[in-house]
């Protein structure tokens, strides 16, 4: 029983279908890559073959940090960021806030040997070379901004988020039997009604998370480029500085008098006791001065969704309280803002939440793909739509294939130190090849790459399974196993399809 008239339902169906058709392929790319980069940290560890990774900052970091700080010009002491890289090394980033663009000195120190392994200096607008992270960076860029220049990519992804929400709402309105059809599997996927069943069923079950992922995605796409300027214009007459002061508070007056810093080890111990979670980074404002502040970022405590940031006085090491994203006191807005990240990235409970988020992302990608195929199946008499259908099939199967080719290019060029260029080039090459291959060959090629990548990773200098096991580097094993499982599933699918084709040929012999 529908509360919409037939004409309105028909119009809504057109809106639902056309909006999906115009941007559906981009949405599919965004959703599929998003489902993969949920494991971005693990992918980074896996790609670098790092076996000494740790999530936590550690207990004793003060000595190493001071040693690194002594080698940096004090003009870079305005802001210091300390965190552990995915390969287990510590990164210290010193930066001067004036003049724009900010000047950065980046130091990487290996805690095992206490030696500085990398040093880079430049403007914040430049990208320091990070060959080991090229694969992660490329896949993340593909998801976050579809590898388009900033801000166009972010805006486009924001639009895709809004479109996904609109499609979810119009989908509910069109299909009024959501609850009644919740258990109706696809009758015959080869027929139109079966294709419709597939799309409706996946859309129905994925509905709650479609809203969550679309809303948070649109938020991240728009907040920087639209949200802040619009809010400043609407509420503060275009004065962004006044808006920042209202939301974040007036910054304390800086006293440049030099003062000895408190021990970071003590501050970390205190923060660990108060937060109950893993400590992921430290930010120091005005290092080595009387007005220095230390902010320690803690991951979500067990059972919670969002982490916290604890502030300490940099000289007296006194606890100043928890800092808020907006405002000076706890508020609903602040809590909701704090939930945006965990709800979008699914990183609040380690690998368990990441697996669930990956599953949901893939389910959403399936809804998009099945919707596109349904739309073209309805128009199977039209040759133009059938050409478009072949394109859709090429993108659906070609995206995973091209991503795997980019990973292969990354591993093959990593020893030469040039994967930053070759990783996207590999993707482009894979995408162009995919569009010329049929689905069966594409499936087989994807399967071969899935099975080959763990071996290629190892042969190009990555850690072996025994080394990873001994060091407890589970991400290396996890990603390798996921690739092998995906490869075996695809191989089985390929065999089943081949058998099916053979049966069809036997049943319908040529005249």
């Amino acid at each position, binding site marked *: 029983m529908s509360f919409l008239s037939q004409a309105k339902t028909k119009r809504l169906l057109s809106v639902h279908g056309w909006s999906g058709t115009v941007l559906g392929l981009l949405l599919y790319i965004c959703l599929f890559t998003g489902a993969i980069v949920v494991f971005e940290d693990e992918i980074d560890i896996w790609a670098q073959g790092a076996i000494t990774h740790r999530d936590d900052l550690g207990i004793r970091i003060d000595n190493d940090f001071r040693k690194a700080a002594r080698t940096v010009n004090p003009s870079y002491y305005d802001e210091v960021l300390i965190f552990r890289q995915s390969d287990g090394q510590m990164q210290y980033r010193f930066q001067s806030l004036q003049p724009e663009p900010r000047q950065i000195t980046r130091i990487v120190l290996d805690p095992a040997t206490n030696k500085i392994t990398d040093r880079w200096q430049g403007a914040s607008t430049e990208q320091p070379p990070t060959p080991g992270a090229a694969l992660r960076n490329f896949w993340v860029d593909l998801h976050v901004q579809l590898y388009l220049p900033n801000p166009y990519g972010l805006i486009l992804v924001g639009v895709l988020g809004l479109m996904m929400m609109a499609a979810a709402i119009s989908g509910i309105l069109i299909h009024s039997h959501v609850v*009644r*059809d*919740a*258990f*109706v*599997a*696809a*009758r015959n996927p080869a027929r139109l009604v079966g294709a419709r069943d*597939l799309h409706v*069923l*996946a859309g*129905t*079950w*994925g509905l*709650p*998370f479609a809203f969550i992922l679309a809303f948070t995605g649109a938020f991240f796409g728009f907040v920087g480029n639209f949200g802040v300027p619009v809010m400043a214009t609407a509420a503060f007459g275009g004065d962004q500085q006044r808006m920042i002061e209202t939301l974040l508070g007036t910054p304390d007056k800086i006293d440049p008098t030099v003062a000895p810093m408190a021990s970071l080890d003590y501050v970390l111990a205190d923060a660990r006791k108060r937060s109950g979670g893993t400590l992921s980074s430290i930010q120091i404002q005005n290092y080595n001065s009387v007005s220095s502040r230390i902010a320690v970022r803690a991951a*979500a405590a*067990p*059972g*919670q*969704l969002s982490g916290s940031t604890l502030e300490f006085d940099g000289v007296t090491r006194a606890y100043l309280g928890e800092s808020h994203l907006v405002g000076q006191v706890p508020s609903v807005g602040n809590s909701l803002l704090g939930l945006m990240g965990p*709800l979008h990235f*699914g990183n*609040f*409970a380690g690998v*368990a*939440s990441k697996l*669930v*988020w990956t*599953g*949901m992302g893939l*389910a959403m990608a399936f809804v998009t793909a099945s919707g596109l195929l349904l739309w073209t199946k309805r128009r199977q008499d039209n040759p133009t739509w059938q050409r478009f259908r072949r394109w859709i099939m090429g993108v659906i199967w070609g995206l995973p294939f091209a991503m795997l080719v980019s990973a292969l290019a990354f591993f093959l060029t990593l020893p030469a130190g040039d994967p930053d260029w070759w990783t996207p080039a590999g993707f482009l090459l894979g995408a162009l090849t995919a569009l010329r291959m049929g689905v069966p060959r594409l499936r087989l090629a994807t399967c071969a790459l899935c099975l080959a990548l763990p071996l290629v990773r190892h042969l190009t200098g990555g850690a072996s399974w025994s080394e990873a096991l001994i060091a407890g580097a589970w991400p290396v094993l996890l990603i390798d196993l996921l690739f092998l499982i995906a490869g*075996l599933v695809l*191989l*089985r699918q390929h*065999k*089943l399809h081949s*058998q099916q084709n053979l049966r069809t040929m036997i049943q319908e012999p040529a005249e």
Partner: protein
Amino acid sequence: MSGWFVIVMIAVSLTGLGYLARTDAKRRRIFGQIALHRRRFIWPARLAVFGPGLLLVGLGHWSGLMIWAGAVTTLGWAMAAIRPQGYVHALYAADGIAIALKRHMLNLWDLTTHRWTGLRVQLSDLIAPKHHKIVPEEQLATLQNRITSLQAELDMQKGTEVSEPAAPALMSSQVQ
């Protein structure tokens, strides 16, 4: 307790969903299953589906709640997407994989003689297992009878002597 507790909560919800899917009238009708004439316990099943979520809310276990919600919707979709016949096939496939695995374990010692061939065959069995259906003896006998009767019919058409049937009960009707 956290991880296992959430897994148990997910399992309880999936059990409820499984019951609702199995007894869903529309699903049964569409896939040609006979209608259920016994009482359907909808509310206990719904309680099993949503109860764990409410419990997690009550306990303030927010990360567990999100994992539970995500896992139940994703696995619930997978559960609903498989047709009733699909479960039967899955059981056969699982049976086939179990048999292939058992054979693989037994043949592991024999790999020195047929190393590569053996391994390849076993791997191919694992990837695409053959359906090892258990055929009851009665069914075998019926098939045997049918073959014999067809043979007899063919012989009669050719004008040759009719061969003796293996099972007279079934053959008598065929000959007449």
